[in-house]
């Protein structure tokens, strides 16, 4: 009540100043009139009464001023005056203002742009009810199971048992992202789907936008709940927002299902990797993922489990309370008939497992794991850049302060207090910071869009600047403004009015120059750090590209087919696969074609342990990457079989015979070297798996060079290639070496597939070169942005160096003139100045080196083929910076050396 009244009064004083002043005038007039009347009644003449009343009252103007002071809003009015004055002063020194604004805008723009993505990927919680209570549940240890997917996975039965731990959870959901073919009856379209437990929407607290959402009653009987929920996005963009969508029948992988509802637009799923188009109940898994089942298998790990903690339960408490149940469950699993035979070691490591509980307030996403480091590195770079620009700005302010010494001294001589002048200076700094911030925010989308283009296209991340980013920017802007403003205020403390008024003030001049020099040293240090980082990231990119995937990528394309997804039976699907391959090989546009089980260089990985049967039984001690390839795969990629032979048509299982176990395999050189050293592995026998009873009846028939499978960073990885046609071959990826352009090859591919079945969608058609470019997106993002930062940093700090050297030279003109008159050469004179620049450069480098050493661990994981404290890079960067720096210092020095000594000496 009271606060409200006071605030109202102050606001009135502030924004309704005119009315308040009129009010005061009226009040004072009323007083004087009453006093005059009183004096008249005592017999004074009108004129006398008036003058006496005025005299008794005192100085009206002064009283008015005191009243305004009393109303305590004067500082705001002053601030306004300072601001307008500041704008006017800044507008007069255009060069200074432009430099300051641009350098600050660069720093702030880079920060805001990167923060836009960092915020969404690493900070912002999910848009669901009370995201803080969500936790992810994960198996820590050896789960003895098969993984389908990335991240921390659990099997569906285990997820359902977690749901029963009601003393810990209010609910538990599980989900699995996948791609399905979606159709409204005509064309098939691959869309992103999420297979979810019946508890999914309830646990997240999401309410439908239309219809209803998947509930527990939709998750009871396998195959009995053909219902889907659409995302708001998908419903509006692809289905035109049809109002009668509820109850409509759609086809998911050719299985009819009914749309029961639309999720709200605000709900973006729990995974940043992408917003699903449809949600499908877990009981419909067989229809959603026709290639594999295992819904009720306890050892098929494929779902992310997210629990909602009961109010008041912490993650630590949850973890502790879940362990007894978990131990019991493992014991039961071990006795269960589904549990595979294991070695005593494996049994021990299985029983040593625990269940982990970690916060899932930001959802579950591989995106976070893979981009956390790069984003942090970029954010760190941007912060360094901002510090550098602030230092630069502080230096500019100091320089400007030196030029304004007389102006400030005059104002103080006229009665302005030091505080008042300091405030004026601070206001100017903040004005510049705000200007820089506004331009920076305007420029931020350039950075965020560039960075966004490096993230996967489907990722649920926006490059738009939002309120949170604006708040972040306002905060950085204010910090930058205050940091820059403090320097000239410190300088003000040393201002001696008399000395300043009488022009020569050597003492204050020198300390200020020293401060500016220190700032330059700092800038050089930051510039060197950024330059070295840029060098490292660029080399990483170059070296990865130079290394390549291990085969020629020109004219190579790949695409995938999955006939089962449009309802083909296994035999039919396999027939279609063979037919497509046969026809591809006959097309004139296509030189070679082969089939494999998956794309390459897409980040995916599959594999496990092997048992080597040669001599003594051994289990591989490293992960062996597995791929299934058909005859001609290596030839299509242009890889020679180093020893032994490739798969050939005799290895292809006759059509119609059931898929059997693997019979033959080809290993890579790395594997051969590691486990067979100098002997040839050809003819040796191995087994897939590491159980005590794993049969070793797969014959190694050949050895090939290493191929990058996951991404270009693959190096020294063990690989094994099985025969594609030995096992399940109803879907796969075709590799095509074309004779002509990718366009003609793509046409040929589509024509071939359409000949076999026009309904069959061609998936993920791409050239391998494009795929490599995509796989390098993080490296490219780091290289591009860090190079940008490095260049900006060098320009800013070198311009700063040039500025101070020019100033120093002007100050020392007389000294230089004197020296030349006394016989010093031009060279000596130039050296005098360059030496100073070298000292600054040296100091900057001296500060930067330990910092680079300290920061090396942060960037290490992002590098390839180059260490984080890489001598040649550091030397090159230092040399480059020194070269530009010395040139910048030479220019003013050279100018000074041209001075005619006579002229200079006479000027004194």
């Amino acid at each position, binding site marked *: 009540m009271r606060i409200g009244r006071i605030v109202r009064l102050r606001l009135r004083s502030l924004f309704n100043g005119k009315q308040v002043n009129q009010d005061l005038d009226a009040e004072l007039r009323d007083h004087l009139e009453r*006093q005059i009347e009183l004096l008249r009644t005592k017999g004074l003449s009108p004129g006398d009464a008036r003058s006496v009343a005025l005299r008794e009252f005192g100085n009206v103007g002064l009283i008015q001023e005191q009243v305004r002071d009393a109303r305590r809003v004067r500082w705001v009015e002053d601030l306004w005056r300072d601001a307008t004055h500041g704008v006017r002063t800044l507008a007069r020194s255009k060069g200074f203002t432009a430099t300051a604004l641009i350098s600050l805008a660069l720093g702030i723009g880079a920060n805001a742009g990167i923060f836009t993505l960092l915020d969404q990927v690493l900070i912002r919680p999910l848009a669901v009810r009370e995201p803080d209570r969500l936790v992810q549940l994960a198996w820590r240890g050896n789960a003895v199971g098969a993984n389908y997917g990335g991240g921390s996975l659990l099997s569906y039965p285990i997820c359902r048992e977690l749901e029963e731990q009601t003393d810990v959870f209010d609910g538990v959901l599980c989900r699995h992202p996948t791609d399905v073919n979606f159709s409204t009856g005509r064309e098939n379209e691959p869309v992103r789907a999420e297979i979810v437990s019946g508890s999914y929407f309830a646990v997240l607290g999401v309410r439908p936008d239309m219809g209803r959402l998947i509930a527990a009653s939709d998750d009871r009987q396998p195959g009995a709940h053909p219902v889907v929920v659409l995302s708001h996005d998908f419903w509006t963009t692809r289905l035109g927002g049809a109002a009668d969508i509820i109850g409509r029948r759609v086809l998911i992988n050719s299985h009819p299902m009914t749309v029961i509802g639309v999720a709200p637009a605000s709900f973006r799923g729990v995974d940043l990797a992408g917003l699903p188009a449809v949600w499908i109940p877990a009981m419909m898994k067989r229809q959603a993922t026709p290639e594999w089942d295992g819904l009720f298998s306890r050892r098929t790990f494929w779902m992310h489990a997210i629990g909602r903690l009961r109010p008041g339960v912490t993650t630590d408490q949850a973890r502790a309370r879940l362990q007894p149940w978990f131990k019991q469950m493992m014991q039961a699993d071990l006795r269960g008939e589904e549990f595979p035979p294991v070695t005593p070691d494996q049994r021990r490591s299985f029983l040593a497992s625990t269940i982990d509980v970690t916060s899932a307030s930001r959802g579950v996403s591989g995106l976070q794991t893979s981009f956390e480091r790069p984003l942090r590195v970029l954010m760190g770079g941007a912060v360094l850049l901002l510090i550098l620009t602030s230092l630069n700005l502080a230096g500019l302010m100091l320089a400007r302060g030196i030029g304004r010494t007389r102006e400030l001294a005059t104002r103080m001589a006229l009665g302005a207090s030091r505080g008042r002048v300091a405030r004026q200076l601070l206001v100017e700094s903040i004005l510049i910071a705000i200007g820089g911030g506004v331009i920076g925010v305007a420029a931020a989308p350039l950075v965020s869009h560039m960075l966004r283009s490096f993230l996967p296209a489907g990722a649920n991340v926006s490059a738009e600047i939002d309120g949170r980013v604006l708040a972040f920017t306002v905060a950085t802007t204010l910090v930058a403004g205050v940091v820059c403003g403090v320097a000239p205020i410190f300088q003000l403390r040393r201002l001696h009015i008399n000395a300043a008024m009488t022009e020569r003030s050597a003492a204050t001049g020198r300390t200020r120059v020293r401060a500016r020099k220190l700032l330059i040293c700092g800038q050089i240090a930051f510039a060197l750090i950024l330059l070295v980082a840029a060098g490292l990231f660029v080399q990483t990119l170059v070296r990865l590209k130079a290394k390549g995937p291990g085969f020629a990528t020109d004219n190579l394309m790949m695409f995938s087919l999955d006939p089962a997804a449009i309802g083909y039976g296994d035999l039919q699907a396999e027939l279609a696969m063979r037919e497509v391959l046969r026809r591809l090989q006959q097309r004139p546009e296509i030189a070679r074609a082969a089939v494999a089980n998956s794309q390459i260089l897409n980040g995916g990985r599959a594999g496990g342990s092997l048992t080597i049967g040669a001599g003594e039984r051994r289990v591989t001690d490293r992960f062996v990457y597995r791929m299934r390839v058909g005859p001609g795969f290596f030839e299509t990629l242009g890889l020679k079989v180093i020893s032994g032979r490739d798969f050939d048509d005799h290895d292809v299982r006759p059509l119609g015979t059931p898929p059997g176990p693997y019979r033959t395999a080809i290993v890579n050189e790395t594997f051969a070297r590691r486990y067979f050293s100098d002997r040839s592995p050809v003819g040796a026998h191995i087994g897939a798996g590491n159980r005590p009873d794993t049969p070793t009846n797969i014959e190694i028939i050949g050895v090939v060079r290493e191929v990058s499978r996951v991404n270009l960073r693959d190096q020294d990885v063990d690989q094994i290639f099985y025969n594609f046609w030995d096992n399940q071959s109803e879907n796969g990826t075709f590799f095509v070496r074309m004779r002509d352009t990718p366009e003609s090859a793509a046409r040929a591919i589509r024509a071939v597939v359409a000949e076999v079945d026009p309904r069959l969608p061609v998936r993920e058609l791409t050239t391998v070169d494009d795929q490599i470019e995509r796989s390098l997106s993080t490296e490219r993002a780091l290289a591009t942005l860090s190079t940008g930062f490095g260049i900006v940093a060098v320009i800013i700090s070198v311009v700063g160096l040039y500025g101070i050297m020019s100033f120093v030279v002007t100050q020392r003109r007389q000294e230089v003139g004197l020296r030349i008159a006394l016989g010093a050469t031009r060279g000596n004179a130039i050296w005098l100045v360059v030496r100073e620049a070298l000292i600054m450069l040296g100091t900057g480098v001296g500060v930067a080196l330990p910092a680079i050493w300290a920061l090396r661990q942060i960037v290490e994981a992002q590098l390839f083929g180059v260490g984080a404290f890489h001598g040649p890079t550091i030397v090159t960067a230092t040399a480059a910076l020194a070269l530009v720096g010395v040139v910048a210092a030479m220019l003013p020095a050279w100018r000074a050396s041209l001075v005619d000594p006579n002229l200079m000496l006479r000027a004194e």
Partner: protein
Amino acid sequence: MSKPTDLVQGTLDLLILKVIALEPMHGWAIAQRISQMSNEVLQVGQGSLYPALHKLEQQGWIEAEWRDSQNNRRAKYYTLTREGRRAMKQEAAQWERLSSAISLIVSQA
């Protein structure tokens, strides 16, 4: 002898509060009342009343309102608020302590 307008710092506030505690008043009347009540010993510099009034208003101790006064003139009337009344009691007690301490010293000397 000092001028009668020289008031101890802060006492003017107390005087104003005391005066309008009786009834709402406008500025001129407050000045008149203070000099009457103090038997014309305290002559408040009439102008210096106003900064004090506005400060008290900003502090929330008094409220101002334009009202009709006699013979159809409008004047700005000041009223004591609840906080003002509380503040007045505290200030008065403070004043009592201060003045008794001073008179103790003065009478002993």
